[in-house]
């Protein structure tokens, strides 16, 4: 009885009593969600253009952040460190296309997926070899003071992070919708054969998406790193992008964003209001539980293409 009460009555009662607090929790969650979106976006870009589920995206985030921090620690200014890290990610895109994708072209998806698992372990080891296994604190001067806006407490850092993510997504949207390269990328995502027939070189396109995904990963890594310090657990946090993708649909950029927001807001609200009933730690499994429900009832996600198979 007490348990049922804690699940079905108390949470709603406390939401009702203190709506500002609910709003605060919700906003905090949404802002965390923005970061999930950012990591998920890297997955979607690569999945759309090359049909590869890139298990290494999380490690790419980590590797990019490590490179960035490494350059800062060598005394570079922030912009130079960013340029170097972005260049490294672009070089990595070339290397991946050359070493991994090209020899495996036309192979089954599962084989490419396995190859990216290999890539994960390689980057993990390589990252430790070059930058060591320590936690690197990262502070690029983003303010972290709490703000009160309209009676609601918001962390300044989260706002900056949201603004950065928002502009990045907007820039990507313009790039995809308005430029010839963007058109080529969408074309490849829609139909490989047709793209080849109008003369779009698939390999160049792959290098571009992997490079863009790498740079998106870099931004995600810098933001996560500023919060948690750059450490190897970032690669694990990036796994939260999986349920985000299942929610949003693997092929949808808007899906990745909305999915991230839902997961972020959902897990915070669940943790704060339902945490007492279950003894906490809901935040750790909420996203996966939600993903499971989606897999059962709507496997294509909110925005994904309907999966229709000929039988």
């Amino acid at each position, binding site marked *: 009885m007490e348990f049922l009460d804690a699940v079905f009555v108390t949470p709603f009662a406390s939401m009702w009593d203190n709506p500002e607090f609910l709003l605060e929790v919700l906003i905090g969650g949404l802002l965390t969600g923005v970061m999930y979106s950012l990591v998920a976006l890297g997955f979607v870009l690569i999945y759309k253009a090359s049909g590869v589920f890139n298990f290494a995206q999380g490690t790419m985030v980590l590797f990019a952040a490590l490179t960035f921090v490494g350059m800062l620690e060598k005394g570079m200014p922030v912009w130079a460190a960013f340029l170097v890290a972005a260049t490294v990610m672009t070089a990595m895109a070339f290397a991946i296309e050359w070493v991994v994708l090209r020899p495996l072209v036309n192979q089954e998806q599962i084989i490419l997926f396995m190859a990216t698992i290999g890539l994960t372990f390689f980057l993990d080891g390589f990252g430790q070899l070059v930058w060591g296994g320590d936690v690197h604190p990262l502070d690029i001067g983003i303010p972290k003071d709490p703000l009160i806006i309209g009676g609601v407490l918001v962390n300044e850092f989260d706002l900056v992070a949201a603004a950065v993510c928002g502009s990045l997504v907007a820039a990507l949207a313009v790039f995809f919708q308005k430029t010839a390269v963007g*058109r*080529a990328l969408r074309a490849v995502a829609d139909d490989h*054969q047709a793209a080849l027939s109008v003369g779009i070189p698939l390999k160049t396109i792959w290098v571009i998406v992997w490079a863009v995904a790498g740079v998106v990963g870099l931004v995600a890594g810098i933001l996560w790193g500023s919060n948690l310090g750059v450490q190897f657990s970032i690669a694990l946090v990036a796994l939260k992008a999986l349920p985000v993708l299942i929610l949003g649909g693997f092929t949808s950029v808007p899906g990745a964003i909305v999915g991230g927001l839902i997961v972020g807001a959902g897990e915070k609200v669940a943790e704060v209001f339902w945490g007492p009933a279950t003894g906490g730690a809901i935040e750790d499994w909420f996203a996966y539980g939600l993903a499971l429900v989606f897999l059962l009832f709507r496997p294509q996600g909110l925005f994904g293409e309907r999966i229709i198979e000929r039988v």
Partner: protein
Amino acid sequence: MGTLAERRIGPPLLKAEQISLAFGGVRALSDVSLEIREHEILAIIGPNGAGKTSMLNVINGFYHPQRGTITFKGETRRRMRPHQAAETGIARTFQNVALFRGMTTLDNVMTGRLLRMRRNFLWQALHWGPALKEELEHRSFVERIIDFLEIQAIRKVPVGQLPYGLQKRVELGRALAMEPTLLLLDEPMAGMNVEEKEDMSRFILDVNDEFGTTIALIEHDMSVVMDLSDRVVVLDYGRKIADGPPDSVRRNQDVIDAYLGVSHD
């Protein structure tokens, strides 16, 4: 068309010589040779599974034959990538419409201009200065094609939402935007009603007439084939069994047997 057609037809533009293609143990093409002459409309016909689409796929580099050579514009090649075929001036449409479904008609046709854009990818990505000017030039070219195919009304509609007949027309538009020397059409009229077929026939003839584009098409509707084509090649079980003007092919006994079946007792 008779004599007029013969006069405008030039020397061979593409020569396929002794092409053999097998998938594992299945022979798709055996020793097929054919020519496509400048400015002609060539029809490739044959029963299902005769190897017609395989032939088109060999010509534009999707398949690499085990034996045989393709000579296009005097250049012989053994292995070629599809995007290289596109660069040398071969455009095509597909049996089961292969459009970029999420994109609008206009954007679909614009992808046909990608190879014609001289500014490199970086400029285009910045979408500024000379690249923007170039984009506008291509845009006006594409608008002319859209006018030509009479699809102005659906310029901004995502092609996934269009009826099949219109999708085929958009696909033709995308191929035309490439300004190809050789246009390969894989069943351009499949699944169309009579009126749509007439429209498509008219467009094919106009393209051939006005732009001088050489066309090779696969078609099942015999009346369309007879009306459109200058020459017909017949494939059956991966072999070429006839090659000539439509009238003579129609009377060819091998062709009649292939289509109607012949008892082997």
